[in-house]
């Protein structure tokens, strides 16, 4: 893909149609999984009982949860295999892997928040927060799939593993679900909706495009690479776009 084809009306293409569809798929399946799963975990709540009865009973809820789980597993499998294939065939950079720079960026940003640095960390295609989110959901998802299978086929599992694995899998499944749910409900929803940078909604995953301003601010290294310039040149060409505290303070 050349440089021009990735632009449209001053916007830069960030996600392909495949990723947009994939994200929709994940939204749909996780929403169903959370709804049908949380009402089972918090079965004693009035709301859960109302919801379960509306779906036609606990057996229906379990059935929906399990088959949506299969869909989710397929999505996870597709995501990882497509990603790996892309990297292996040299089509994509292995940009999602966590590197030493991510730790440095995290520390840099904390310093920036407290005013010890005059600009936020300069990140590549995925910043450390996005990576954290991705890996938490990926590893969590694999855990959920494994424990989910154990809970689905307890008699089969106890032929190989001790019985205690079943309640342990249940504990892991529901705890991990809570963790992923909190991650989504607090962190992802804040970053995608309530963060003042994107409010009212970060549309990039739905349209596939992101503004150049946001690219300069959030993914300057990727933009510089795309435009064939060094990050320093990019910064020089776009003064003030990467916020410089000291410059702003002097101007005031």
């Amino acid at each position, binding site marked *: 893909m050349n440089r021009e084809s990735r632009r449209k009306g001053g916007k830069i293409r960030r996600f392909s149609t495949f990723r947009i569809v994939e994200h929709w798929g994940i939204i749909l399946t996780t929403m169903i999984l959370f709804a049908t799963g949380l009402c089972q975990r918090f*079965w004693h709540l009035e709301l859960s009982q109302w919801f379960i009865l509306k779906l036609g*009973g606990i057996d229906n809820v379990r059935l929906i949860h399990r088959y949506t789980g299969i869909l989710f597993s397929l999505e996870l499998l597709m995501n990882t295999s497509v990603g790996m294939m892309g990297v292996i065939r040299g089509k994509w950079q292995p940009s999602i892997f966590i590197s030493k720079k991510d730790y440095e960026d995290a520390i840099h940003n904390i310093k920036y*928040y407290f005013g010890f640095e005059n600009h936020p960390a300069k990140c590549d295609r995925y910043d450390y927060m996005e990576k954290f989110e991705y890996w938490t959901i990926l590893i969590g998802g694999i855990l959920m799939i494994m424990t989910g299978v154990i809970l689905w086929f307890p*008699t089969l599992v106890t032929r190989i593993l001790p019985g*205690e694995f079943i*309640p342990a899998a249940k504990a892991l499944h529901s705890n991990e679900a809570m963790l992923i749910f909190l991650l989504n409900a607090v962190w992802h929803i804040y970053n995608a909706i309530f963060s003042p940078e994107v409010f009212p909604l970060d549309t990039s995953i739905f349209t596939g495009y992101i503004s150049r301003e946001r690219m300069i601010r959030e993914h300057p290294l990727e933009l510089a690479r795309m435009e064939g310039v060094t990050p320093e040149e990019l910064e020089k060409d776009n003064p003030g776009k990467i916020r410089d*505290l000291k410059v702003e303070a002097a101007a005031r």
Partner: protein
Amino acid sequence: MKVGKRIPWILVLLFSFPVLAVGYGHARETEVSDVSRKCLQCHGKQGIVKTFLNEETVEAYVNPEKIRTSVHNFLTCSECHSGFSEGKHPSGKYKSKFQFRLRSSSICRRCHSADRIKAKPVHATLLKKEKMGESPICTNCHDAHSVSAASGGKVFSNEKQYCQKCHQHELSMNFSDGEKMSLKVDPAILESSAHSKLRCSDCHYGYSSEEHPEKNFRSRRDYVIASSESCRRCHFDNYTKTLDSVHYDLLKQGNLKAPVCNDCHGSHQISHITHGVKGGLITTQRCKKCHPMIYEMYAKSVHGNALINEQNQDVPICIDCHTAHDIQNPMTLAYHEKIPQMCGNCHANPAVVGKYGLSTDVVKTYLSDFHGVTLGFYKKQREELYKPARPIAVCNDCHGTHNIVSTVSAGPTSVKKNLVRRCQKCHKDATEEFPNAWLFHYKPSFSKFPMIFVVNSIYRIFIPIMWAGFVLQILLHIWRYAVNR
């Protein structure tokens, strides 16, 4: 008239009053005739005994006072005891006392013909029996020498006394199927019953000194079932409860063996409710009458053994689980679903099971686990969505029903054996290891089920830290954004 002239008249009236009064009295209680007085010379003294051929005896003593006050006081002895006179005293030979009384009754009928006495309903019944060859004995109810009209002539202080007049004797009732039932009521039993203050007609309605309707029943059982209907007049709440019971369902289907009120509570001997161990023992014995096999199982169980051998009143008796009146069919799903709650009545109550060192978490741990949650939803689905449900394993599926044994005394291997068998009912290919997926009512701890404990602990630490991290990052981000603007 001057006062002085009136005095002699007043005195005459005053003195003549006792004479007149005695005279009036004599008119009511006639002196016995001379002939009779002669008989009483011997028969008015105690000690004369008549012996029958079967060696039975009867005292030939006649209380002169009773003769004088009886309704027959105007008769001479020989009018009833025909053949006896001043000169004749034949020695009648009777086989038995019964034959003698039967013979005596025939004397009564000389004056009191069937036509005259049949107006009284009670007599109508007796006359009918007479036609069938069973002669009534008048003196059973009316006495011999002190004969009084069972009503009217003599005023009874209460209805019970009036009924007892006849029903203290060996009366009986015949049913169409040839069965007989004694109508004798022991006054002592009646007095000691919970209903001692009631009148006979409170239960036997339709019967009084005026009315004694004849009722025909096919069998004694029919009579018992019909009689139980009278209980509802006072015990309407319990009566209506029985209409919803499995026993009444059986009765409706035509099973006359199904118990009705008096089968459990008795009839004239109805006792007050007994509480405590004694009451428990009485109640279990009542159920045993029809359910002996279940009783045997119960008696050997941890509950039954404690009741019978240790006089322990904390243990459940039949009615604690099955209730007393609105007894439900225990084979239904609705009943099955109620079992954890039933067991929980005691096993979740520290006041009951605390002293035996039993955990009160057993019900909570069951209800919050897979089976307990499923059971709760199946119940709701049945009630609200009319969805058929499958029976989910509840307390008695693993612990037994009437034959519950202590899990401590049974030992873990026996408990597990039971469990595997129960698991396999629903989980066909369950192995011996499968029951270990159940935590046996324990809460995971480091010593019991460490794997679950560790998983839970890690998340209990990790989730709040992560949550705090997110919130902090968000707050810092907003703060930095606000500062930059």
